[in-house]
């Protein structure tokens, strides 16, 4: 296990996008870094990439985990390092922050579309909803046939961030990216 670096709470909820051409270049390079468990999503699509700071050949990349125990974080950190070192940055620092806590609301529109095309239903409602606790499950459309007649098999699916659903129309099972 690699140590996590715990930093104090950043001010804003939204990721700090590129502020300079140098930072924009790094954001562009990091479009090649994807979630190892959902390879269609880039770290920016997921909202895991929070901020980039560049100073000459040194670059700091700030990321946040989706779940406390997300096993993809070590791979993502290493992929970011490899990508930026290959692009010529001599010093690459990857910092993990826990606050503000990641939410499915940070998935980009592009990310949601890619998820659906990949066969994973995107989150159906805002995470602020308290319905997860004894809640009625949201209506989740089947990513295969589009039918809305689906049922939750288990709130815990193939990875920490997904629930396991079944479509009553086409009878196919599918993953649902659950709201947190």
């Amino acid at each position: 296990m690699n140590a996590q670096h715990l930093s104090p709470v950043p001010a804003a909820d939204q990721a700090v996008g590129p502020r300079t051409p140098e930072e924009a270049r790094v954001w562009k390079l990091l479009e090649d870094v994807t979630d190892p468990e959902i390879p269609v999503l880039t770290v920016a699509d997921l909202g895991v990439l929070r901020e980039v700071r560049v100073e000459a050949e040194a670059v700091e990349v700030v990321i946040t985990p989706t779940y406390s125990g997300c096993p993809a974080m070590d791979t993502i950190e290493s992929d970011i390092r490899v990508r930026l070192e290959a692009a010529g940055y001599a010093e690459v620092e990857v910092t993990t922050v826990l606050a503000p806590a990641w939410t499915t609301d940070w998935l980009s529109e592009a990310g949601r579309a890619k998820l659906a095309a990949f066969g994973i239903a995107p989150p159906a409602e805002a995470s602020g909803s308290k319905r997860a606790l004894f809640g009625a499950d949201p209506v989740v459309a089947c990513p295969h046939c589009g039918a809305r007649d689906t049922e939750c098999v288990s709130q815990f699916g193939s990875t920490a961030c997904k629930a396991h659903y079944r479509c009553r129309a086409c009878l196919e099972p599918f993953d649902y990216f659950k709201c947190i």
Partner: protein
Amino acid sequence: MTDIAKDQLFEYLLRLGDSSLILGQRLSEWCGHGPELEEDIALINIALDLIGQARSLLTYAGEVEGRGRDEDGLAFLRDGTDYRNLLLVEQPNQDFAYTIARQFLFDAFHLEQQRALMGSRDETLAAIAGKSVKEVTYHLRHSSEWLVRLGDGTPLSHGKMQTALDDLWMYSGEMFEMDALEAALAEAGVAPDRAALRPAWEARVAAVIEEATLQRPDDGWMQSGGLRGRHSEHLGHILAEMQHLQRAHPGAQW
């Protein structure tokens, strides 16, 4: 509001981190043995969340302690008497009813505790709690639904669920026990008063038990000691398995 000493915060972080770690390790024993595939996956997902929370808490504990111990050093190289987890979470899985009863009693407490910790004056603790709350909400929903399904199921499942609740109830009191350490932390605005978490826990537990057509056990003798390092015999067995590799091959990485 008062300032607290580093060793007080360290001790409290162990209490939090160790309970998550030991329960995560316990649940991991179900891997490959769940009563059905979906449930096997669910229990292991919950274990993963808990171990993730423990990693954050023990990493922070090591930083606060300032003696160079990281999460691995704290998890793998401490003896049982140095562990500060609740007695409840080290109790054996036994059958699925015991696993669910243990999980439900803890989840209902864990959610209230983490909600309160989101308001901690300690920013790192508040940040860890902010993530944990989202995960624990799903844990409590899962254990509550099983409690209802088994309690309000067949006579056999009802009986097993009631027996498990009755047997584990004596470990529920420790979750709400205050001592001088936590009183000082509560005074400083770092940790919640455990006793203040109790009414919400009682209300939720009573509601779910009623829906499950089960009886809330009477409060009798309550076991205590885990938070001070006095454990049941079970913890040693857990640690023997969990720590074996790092004890046999110190510093091993893969």
